[in-house]
């Protein structure tokens, strides 16, 4: 075969062919005999759970690591990039999930830092403007990156790639930081690139997006290609099941009796302790027993600050935060846990968990108070270890044992452990920021199920997330955090994506761009 079929039936000339690629690390085979091909201008999805080998695969294509065996061919010529610069020279560019931008520099300076031979600043700015207009990605080259929204930061990364005029653009989870409207705009840009002949290798967990965007999909499971398909012809559920290799359960929700108010926040304002953070402005909401409040919003709109203010790391006046009838606003994390409020921050490495400490020690990190693991100031490590083992069993955490360092676990596995740690403490109020960030579909489903189970048992739950599908699935009421302000919570039932998008502040003034361009 010298080309791949388009969904229209035509044949695209082949751009990149991957043949029998294998890459092993001590103890794991990340990729085993992987083969697939991408045609010129094709939007190709690479699907799979965490640890399925997607990242390893794209890192090899981008020259960050080298395969143990197998070959790659780019436009018929052998392709073995030894480093990313070589990959870029041959026309392969990549937008990473986590941006590598300097907040204190402006857009043009950031772009220049990523180039081998940056042109004069003025010329570069002109080129940035030209490219951004051509592709409907408005961006002012002189703005500080620290002042940009997540969506705008992503545009910096994309434009940085486009300036190299790539033949293949690799995108790793690009929509996780965007509003629905911004996603639409990004997709328009990607389709335009595709129609001009740039192929896109698209990695995402969001199957509906892949259905609407991608021409072909390669599905990996445990390092092997298990299926290829045309996403438009499959349902999201079918693809998810191919990824997992098992049938998926949709979380079941019980019809909850709304109880009395378990968590009340009134007119909470707080300056952000984080550099370039967002201050909280007059946040008010209540959550009843058995209710799940979903808080949506684009990253960087005050989510981290809200979590800090609820966990007790950021204190306020006593009556700003109430757990049942206790005023806890001026109390720290320990006292709030005692009062029945547990919280799970988003950042796993260094905030929710200490990366270099063992899982046992990390279990003690928050569970000491509620699980009675301290006696006369001394830690009952035997009991703590039992609790850690309970979490590992109940949440199917893949680890050699409870004594390994937290950082040795994959992101998804550590997240399962940390969710279990908070959810298994029998708290009356549970606050979670990004419960399933970077967790595979099966594990995400089971985490969501446990959240619903806790609510079913009468806990009040606040879920802060950037995954709208997740929020719609678990929440009874729905609010949006935008620039540190929270909208009034509304019942989730009956909300449409358009309404939600508008609550989220639309596309941050971007609609215009595409209408004009």
């Amino acid at each position, binding site marked *: 075969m010298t080309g791949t079929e388009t969904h229209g039936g035509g044949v695209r000339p082949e751009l990149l062919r991957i043949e029998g690629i294998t890459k092993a690390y001590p103890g794991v085979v990340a990729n085993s005999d992987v083969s697939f091909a991408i045609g010129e201008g094709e939007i190709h999805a690479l699907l799979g759970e965490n640890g399925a080998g997607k990242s390893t695969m794209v890192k090899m294509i981008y020259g960050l690591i*080298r395969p143990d065996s197998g070959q790659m061919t780019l436009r018929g010529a052998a392709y073995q990039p*030894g*480093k990313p610069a070589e990959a870029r020279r041959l026309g392969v560019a990549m937008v990473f999930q986590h941006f590598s931008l300097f907040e204190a520099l402006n857009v043009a300076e950031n772009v220049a830092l990523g180039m081998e031979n940056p042109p004069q600043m003025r010329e570069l700015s002109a080129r940035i403007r030209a490219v951004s207009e051509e592709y409907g990605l408005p961006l002012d080259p002189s703005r500080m990156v620290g002042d940009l929204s997540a969506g705008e930061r992503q545009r910096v990364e994309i434009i940085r790639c486009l300036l190299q005029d790539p033949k293949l653009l690799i995108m790793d989870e690009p929509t996780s930081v965007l509003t629905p409207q911004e996603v639409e705009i990004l997709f328009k840009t990607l389709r335009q690139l595709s129609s001009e002949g740039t192929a896109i290798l698209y990695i995402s967990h969001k199957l509906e997006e892949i259905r609407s965007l991608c021409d072909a999909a390669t599905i990996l499971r445990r390092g092997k290609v298990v299926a290829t398909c045309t996403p438009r012809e499959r349902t999201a559920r079918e693809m998810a099941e191919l990824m997992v290799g098992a049938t998926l359960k949709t979380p079941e929700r019980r019809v909850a009796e709304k109880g009395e108010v378990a968590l009340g926040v009134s007119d909470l304002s707080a300056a952000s302790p984080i550099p370039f953070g967002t201050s909280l402005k007059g946040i008010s909401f209540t959550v009843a027993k058995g209710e799940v409040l979903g808080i949506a919003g684009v990253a960087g709109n005050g989510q981290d600050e809200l979590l800090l203010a609820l*966990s*007790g*790391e950021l204190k306020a006046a006593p009556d700003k935060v109430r757990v049942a009838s206790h005023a806890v606003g001026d109390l*720290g*994390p*320990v006292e709030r*846990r005692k009062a029945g409020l547990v*919280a799970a*921050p988003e*950042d796993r490495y*260094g*905030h*929710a*968990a*200490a*990366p*270099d*400490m063992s899982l046992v*020690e990390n279990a*003690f*990190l*928050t569970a*000491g108070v509620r699980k009675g693991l*301290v006696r006369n*100031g*001394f*830690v009952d*490590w035997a009991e703590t270890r039992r609790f850690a083992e309970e979490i590992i069993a109940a949440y199917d955490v893949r680890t050699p044992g409870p004594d*390994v*360092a937290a*950082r*040795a676990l994959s992101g998804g596995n550590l997240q399962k452990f940390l969710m279990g740690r908070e959810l298994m403490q029998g708290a009356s109020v549970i606050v979670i920021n990004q419960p399933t960030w970077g967790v595979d579909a099966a594990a995400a489903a089971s985490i969501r199920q446990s959240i619903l189970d806790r609510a079913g048992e009468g806990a009040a739950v606040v879920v802060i997330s950037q995954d709208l599908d997740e929020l719609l699935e678990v929440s009874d009421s729905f609010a949006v955090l935008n620039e540190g302000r929270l909208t009034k919570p509304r019942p989730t039932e009956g909300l449409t994506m358009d309404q939600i998008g508008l609550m989220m502040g639309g596309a941050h003034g971007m609609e215009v761009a595409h209408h004009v361009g």
Partner: protein
Amino acid sequence: MLRLEKRPSPSRFWLYATPPVAVLLTMVVGGILFATMGKNPFEVIRTIFWDPVFGEFAFYLRGQLLVKAGPLILIAIGLALGFRAGIWNIGAEGQYIMGAIFGASVGLAVFPTESRLIFPVMVVAGAFGGWVWAMIPAILKTRFNTNEILVSLMLVYVAETILAKASTGFLKNPEGMGFPGSRNFSSYPAAANPELIAGSGLHWGGVAALVTGVLAYILLTRHQAGFQIKLAGQAPRAARFHGVSPTRLVVMCMGISGALAGLAGLFEVTGPAGQISIDFNTGYGFTAIIVAFLGRLNPLGIVLAGFLMALTYVGGEMASTNLGLPDAAIQVFQGMLLFFLLAVDVLTNYRFRLAVGAH
């Protein structure tokens, strides 16, 4: 080409292998240093590391080891607790001096009263003196966010000035014929800290050092405060999430290290030194920093490291008297030990990899 690569989890092997490897490297490079100075390197190394324990005068020198190791261990354990938490008390030397002055002042104030209570009260006063001196950088840090490294270090020089004033002024021996220095505690039994077993070198300071080592070990491994200290050092944000108040932690760690340094000073002035004098302090407070790291900031490791460092002191003195080696060369030797220790320590968390191709 060699490249450093972060290990997935810290190497247990290098955790324990680092100190011996560092000692070995110090011997090799120190040996080269001594050779270039025209000394026989093997003889010098033997004099420093072997003779104090097994040589001709070992019967006396072994006791000296305990005398030197005691204060080093006591101070280093306090420092290690702070270092574990990311709190850098560099001014133990000053706290050591202030402990000695406070404790000695109490004893000398009641001279020549005889009572069994005098020495215990002096011990408390000594610990209090070190604690007060450590509270200055602690409070400045928590209230005004000053750097505790600079403040505690500068306070050493203030303490040295006070020491000079004390030995020539308010603590000067009235029967000392005008010589600087206080009364000698060896002639004041109620306030003295003599050898507990003749010839062993063991006095109350040594006992305190060993007991503190065990207590600190229990604190770090079993007590909630020990967990919080480790957590704050490794992941400050996780520590705040756990519920550690950074202010309280700074006050606690600085307080403990200051009090232990003060204790060491008190035991020294009432025992081996015998009196407050202008040059009473001999740099234990600074050497203890090396001891703390040499012992991997682990209390039991510090006990061993304290003896090793005492060996370089005692052996170094032997080398300078018997072989004519300058004191500075011995200090370079001790400094080298810390240097190699920190350098080799990289291997605990990183490993060398042969990079394939260009990078």
